[in-house]
Each structure stands twice: as C-alpha cells, then as structure tokens.
C-alpha cells in the first residue's frame, strides 16, 4: 500500500491544521484546566490560567459527588446495550446474509425501514409504553430501546460483511460435519471481528452519551447515568463554576480515552457505511 515515504508538509499546511485542531480542542482544554482553578479565580479572570493550581475540585467530585455511581450506571447500560446489539444484530444479519429463503429481501427491507424512524420522535410513546410495562427506573428501560434503535444500522453494516465470507469455507466446514450454527459460532464470528468491533464501538459510544431517553425513563437518581449527572450537577450548583468544570472534565475523560483507543474502528465503521 505505501507508495511514498511520509514527509513533512509545507508550513501553510501545518498552520491550517494547527488552527483547526486548536478550535476543536480549545474549549475542552479550557474545561479541564478550569477545573484546577477556584470559582473566585474564574470570576475575576474568566480566561486566565490556574494560579495556583488546585486539586480540590477534582478531589471533591471524586469523593463527595455521585460521580462513581453514575459512571457505574453508564457502564452497565452501555455494556448491556453493546452486548445485546451484537447478539441480536449478528444473529439476524447472519440469517439475512447466508440463508436463502423466501422473503429474505423483504425482511432486510423491513429492518432498514428503521433507519427512517428517528428515536427522538418516538420518545414520548416509548416512555408511556415503558411506564405501562413497569420498566421505567430500571436499566432495561434504557437498554432495550437503545438496542432496538441500533439494530437497523447494525444489520446494514454487518450483512455485507457476513455475505463476503467465502462459500467454500462453509462447504468445507459442512464436509467436516459443522452445521450452519457451528459455522456461525466457530468461523463467522472470529472472521468478522473487525466489523463486530466497529458496530460495538458505535453502539457503546451512542449509549454512553445518550441523554434524552435516560432523562425521561430514569427518574430515580440512584440509576442516573453520567450525562444526567453532569446536567444535574451543573443546574444544582450553578455558583460552583469550578466544581462544574471538574465534574464535566471527569465525565468526558472515559469517552476521550475510549475514542483514542477505538478511533480506527469508529472511522473504519463509518467508512464501511459510506461504501455500503
């Protein structure tokens, strides 16, 4: 693949790239650094640097707030959503990719129709339904709808990937006495790991950042996820600017770390979506 050695670009390119990068992360840096100041410092000079640096805000958030509980809730919901999306999505996509049967394309179209149903528009009846099912104030109230709304895109991304696995492999497996389910489990899954990681990462990030659904279905503060926690903290302690900055920084840290590790998968997944 590599044609030319990677070289230094012209100073103009670097200047432009630096400017773009600066606009992208300046507010983030401001929030993180601001967390090391005191509120009086911020009020006196909103754009200044910490002088002196104080750890107190971060210490307070980590020891006195609900940060850990909310991080735990976010993790449970995000991991639950991801695992369930993968399990249901792979099963359905596998059938749509590797079984020949009457109505297959209709079924696929039926799933892709979901891409046109915006989660935002369905939120009120969704809430009413979860309330009537006695599911509000449980992790399931967030997990199940998130899984449902992630399924269409998951299937759209996974299907071509599963179709592309050569038929010869399946025949060979059949000769060795492996059925279709065995083929799914022992050969398809390991082979499609990159696509699974992509779909999983997208579902995880969407769930970790979700706000509207948890806002409506989780009124119990003990079940609040981090986005709800950040919002509550900032409206509850409006005068504690430094505290809000610290809480916000800590809340975005996991997403930033996760993204640094999974950047290739996210970009790769969107790339696949563009191709398809």
């Amino acid at each position, binding site marked *: 693949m590599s044609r030319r050695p990677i*070289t230094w670009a012209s100073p103009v390119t670097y200047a432009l790239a630096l400017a773009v990068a600066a606009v992208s992360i300046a507010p983030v840096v401001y929030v993180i650094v601001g967390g090391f100041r005191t509120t009086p410092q911020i009020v006196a000079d909103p*754009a200044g640097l910490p002088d002196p640096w104080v750890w107190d805000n971060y210490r307070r958030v980590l020891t006195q707030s609900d940060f850990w509980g909310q991080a735990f809730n976010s993790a449970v919901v995000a991991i639950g959503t991801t695992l369930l999306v993968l399990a249901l999505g792979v099963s359905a996509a596998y059938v749509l990719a590797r079984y020949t049967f009457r109505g297959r394309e209709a079924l696929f179209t039926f799933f892709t129709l*979901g891409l*046109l149903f915006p989660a935002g528009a369905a939120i009120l009846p969704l809430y009413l339904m979860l309330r009537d099912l006695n599911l509000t104030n449980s992790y399931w109230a967030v997990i199940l709808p998130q899984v449902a709304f992630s399924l269409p895109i998951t299937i759209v991304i996974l299907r071509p990937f599963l179709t592309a696995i050569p*038929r010869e492999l399946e025949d060979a497996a059949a000769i060795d006495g492996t059925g279709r389910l065995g083929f799914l489990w022992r050969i398809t899954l390991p082979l499609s790991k990159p696509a699974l990681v992509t779909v999983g990462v997208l579902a995880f990030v969407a769930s970790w950042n979700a706000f509207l659904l948890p806002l409506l279905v989780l009124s119990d503060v003990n079940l609040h996820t981090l986005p709800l926690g*950040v919002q509550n903290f900032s409206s509850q302690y409006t005068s504690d600017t430094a505290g809000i900055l610290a809480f916000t920084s800590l809340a975005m840290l996991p997403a*930033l770390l996760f993204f640094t590790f999974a950047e290739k998968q996210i970009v790769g997944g969107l790339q696949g979506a563009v191709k398809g």
Partner: protein
Amino acid sequence: MTSIKSTPSLAGAPPAGFGSATRSNRAAETRRKWYEIIGLTTPALVVYVMFVLVPMGFAVYYSLYKWRGVGAPTNFVGFDNYVLAFQDPIFIDALRNNAIIVVGSLLVQGPIALGVALLLNRRFRGRTVFRLLVFVPYVLAEVTVGIMWKLILTDGGTMDALFRSLGLGGLVQAWLADLDIVIWTLLFVLTWKYVGFAIILLLAGLSNVPHELTEAAAIDGAGWWQIQRHVTLPLLGPTIRIWMFLSMIGSLQVFDVIWVTSVPAVRSLGASNTMATYMVDNGFFARLWGYGNAVAVILFVISFVAALLFQRFLLRRDIQGAITGRAN
C-alpha cells in the same frame, strides 16, 4: 449440536440420489433450516418491532385524544391537537429554528468539512494526531458539550473576556439570552460539535478515491487544486450526499445540545426551541400527552417526508451522473 449429514450447503447442491431416505433427509434439512431462521431472527424482530414500530403507532393513537396520561385516553378530539400545534406561534418558531439548523448546518459544515478533509487527506508527518484532535468534539457527549459552551458563553464569561482582550469588546453579545441571537449561537455550538462527523465521513470517502486517478492527473500536469476540483470532488459526490442526508435528519430531531445549552426561559419564548424540545416540554413536563404525541407525529412525518424526498433526489442525481459519465 449434532452434525448435518451429507447435504453440504443451503444453496442446495443437488443431492447425490433420489432415494426415499435422501428425500426425507432433505425435508428434515428444510425444517431445520426454518427453525434456525426463525430462532435467529425472532429476538431481533421482537425488540425492533416492539420498541421502534409499536411506539410510533401509539403516538398516532394518543395524538387524537386530549389526555393527561392517567388511565386510558377517552376524550377523543380528532385532529384538534395538530391544528393547535400549527396555531401556536411558539411551535412555528420551533419549525423556523429547525429550518435554520438544517440549512445552516449544511451550508456551514459542508465547506468547512470539505476543506479540512482535503487538508488532512494529504500525507504528512503528524497527520494522525491532527485527525484525532479534530474528531474530539464529535465523541464528546452532547450534554458535556452543552454545559461546556454554556459556561464559556455566559454573560461576562470566557468568550466575552476573550473578545475584550482582543480589542473586540464591541462585538460582545448576550450570546444565550438575546432572543435574536441565541439560535445563531446554538448553530455555532452545533457546528463545532458535528463538523467532525462530516470530516470523518469525507475522509473515509477520500480514502476510497483511487490513487491512480489523482496520480494520472498529476502526470498530465494538473495542479493540486485542479485535481481536487475535477477528480476528487466528483468522486466524493455519494459521500457528500450521505452526509447531507444524515445531517438533515439529525438537525430535524436535535434535542440534547439545545436543551442543555439554552436557558428554559429563552426556550419558552420560542427563541431557541426546536420541535423535539417543544415536544418534550409540552408532552412530558407539562403532561399534555395527547398534544405532545401530535407534535411527535408531526416531527416524524416531516423527517420521513424529508428523507424520502432526499432519497429520490439522491437516486436521480446518481443515476444521471452515471449516465452522463458514460456518455462522456
């Protein structure tokens, strides 16, 4: 699981013989295949139908009632809720704001994203780091972004201090409180948050542009701009249209950033409402469930029609491009 006998593939290579044993084998095989199909697709189907399709059906049903959300709805009002919505100036404001966000996002993010993507598509040392930094706003939670900008843009906050220190104090505005300005402030925040997504998509599209083409053009003496204009951009067409589609649908439903960044008082005056915030305010918080569901249906229909129109338009464009491309 037990092994399947000798019939190797579902595509159905013709079985070796036509004896009765083989025939019953084949029947068992077909039955088994259907069990697998049903077993593997049912869980996904159930969850999908139950949580995506059924709620939209209920929305239509509830929207025909005046209903406070307790007990079964009994007060049937027909299409009154829809009429009410279109008579409410605050809802009309919400529609206008959504329109501003849809058009503004396309017009502002598109060119920026294209410029940055072309820049970051060049091979140079440090490119990976720049890419990573540019994507950061996109992965942050909407709530985080909202609170961050709310603190920065607050009266006498960091943004104002920054303007003053640059000698631009005259430009300082009540970014989030001025009713004529707040929607543009929000458009700015949304642009900051989502332009990274456009860049990711375009970079993905650019990586699919065959290198041979740009190199051939370069050998023919085309300059960098000419290559981008006449080779890269036309090939990027489908990617750009997919992004426009996703951006449009996202803008029509936008909730989180608006909800968190703008003050409820400003929202209730209509200055920074969108259809989604209006819907949640009225349906969930004011408990006007019938009315809220009517707004949900309007939001859904607008998104749906926009999506269909866009796809038609998209499809035609792509077919035309293919035909004229071949004619050349």
